[in-house]
């Protein structure tokens, strides 16, 4: 029942997104604008500051992710459909996981466009180690989205949710973003030190486990009142 509920929520979210394309367009537009502004500011004569690409990638993921989280739950608020999900006799943690998987899928789709763009604009060898890059980006996105999905769901009825979401989200996800930046920077070194990359990926996976476990544990009581 848990997996079936997750699948139903993910399929519904992706169907709604394919029809409206609202989150994909806004997230991508914001992320691309962000990368372009930094490219004009930081790239001089075709050379960027060392490790700038790593920082820009994670700034773009964090900012556009916050936008996507806000819109994903605004959609559930407009017709109070989040209440309908909570009223269903489905495990509430499964509803959280379904929303989380949908957000991660959207952000990964945006990252697939962002990464080659950053590699090109910053002349950074981001795609030199695709397996490790995928491990870093996906594990970091899961950690960021795990906390973001919980907070966005919690704040869905708060009047100042657009202000509160980043205020709550960024301090808690700073470790994920720092680990993501350091892991990505390690991938940009001329000689790849696998031990260092493995350490950062392990740290990101540890954050994922902690954040997802805490969110699963707290989602039902937080959403009940």
């Amino acid at each position, binding site marked *: 029942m848990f997996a079936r509920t997750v699948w139903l929520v993910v399929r519904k979210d992706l169907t709604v997104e394919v*029809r409206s394309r609202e989150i994909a367009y806004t997230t991508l537009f914001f992320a691309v604008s962000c990368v372009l502004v930094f490219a004009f500011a930081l790239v001089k004569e075709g050379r960027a500051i060392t490790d700038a690409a790593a920082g820009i990638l994670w700034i773009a993921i964090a900012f556009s992710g916050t936008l996507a989280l806000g819109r994903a739950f605004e959609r559930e608020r407009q*017709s109070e*459909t989040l209440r309908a999900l909570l009223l269903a006799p489905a495990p509430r943690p499964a509803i959280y996981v379904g929303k989380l998987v949908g957000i991660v899928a959207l952000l990964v789709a945006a990252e697939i466009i962002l990464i080659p763009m950053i590699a090109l604009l910053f002349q950074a060898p981001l795609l030199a180690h695709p397996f490790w890059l995928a491990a870093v980006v996906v594990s970091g996105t899961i950690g960021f989205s795990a906390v973001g999905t919980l907070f966005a769901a919690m704040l869905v009825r708060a009047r100042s949710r657009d202000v509160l979401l980043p205020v709550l989200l960024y301090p808690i996800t700073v470790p994920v973003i720092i680990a993501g930046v350091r892991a990505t920077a390690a991938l940009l070194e001329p000689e790849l030190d696998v031990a260092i990359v493995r350490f950062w990926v392990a740290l990101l996976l540890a954050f994922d486990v902690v954040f997802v476990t805490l969110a699963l544990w707290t989602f039902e009581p937080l959403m009940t009142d």
Partner: protein
Amino acid sequence: MTASLRASVDFDDLAVEDISRHFGRRRALSKITFHAGRNTILGLLGPNGAGKSTMLSMLATLLRPSGGRIRYGSHEAGPHAAAPHSEALRAAIGVLGHDLFLYPELSARENLAFFAALHGIAASADAARAALQRAGLADRADDPVSSFSRGMRQRVALERALIHGPRLVLLDEPFTGLDDASAAALVARLNGLRESGAIVILATHDLDLAEGLLDRAVFLRDGRMVQSIDRPDRLRATYRAVMTRS
């Protein structure tokens, strides 16, 4: 009841006993008590801010009471109940809110099939098809809900709330935005639910439409229950008298 993959509890009566609910220092409801059995339509009547929607949220298990208890047959919900919001209990409750709980981007069929599947109904597509027939919307089944009129959306929303055959049906202002024909159809549907053994709790301002429909009226004002009347007649006059007296 509809064939479901999920466990559901069943009950013959609903008892609300000294229920209170506070939001911080604000008291939304204070010591409300009433009872409803099967084949009953109970109306929660009162002005804006009387606490009707809060009461429905607690009955739907979306809010925990601050005090008192709600008994669904032998199952209890309250601040100290062991498992106040179990999935099995939610499987026996259907809610039509003031907002319609529908995804405007999805078609009527997709909305109904999604919620049927979420309620664990094995043949969710068949359940959606039957619900669309009942709503009289089979010919618009694949149109997005955003293209529907308020009355059509309300009919889809009612079928969404009832798709799993709930024992307890909670309706918050179900007559809002309906034309005369749609309102009459809704009254007929509510009478049908009563005949089928459901417990229907209805919060409404529309006393003319509720006239003759209710088996019991519970009058609320400022979070307090001011009167409860069985088989109320001349509802508008009674409402005026009760509200001016208290």
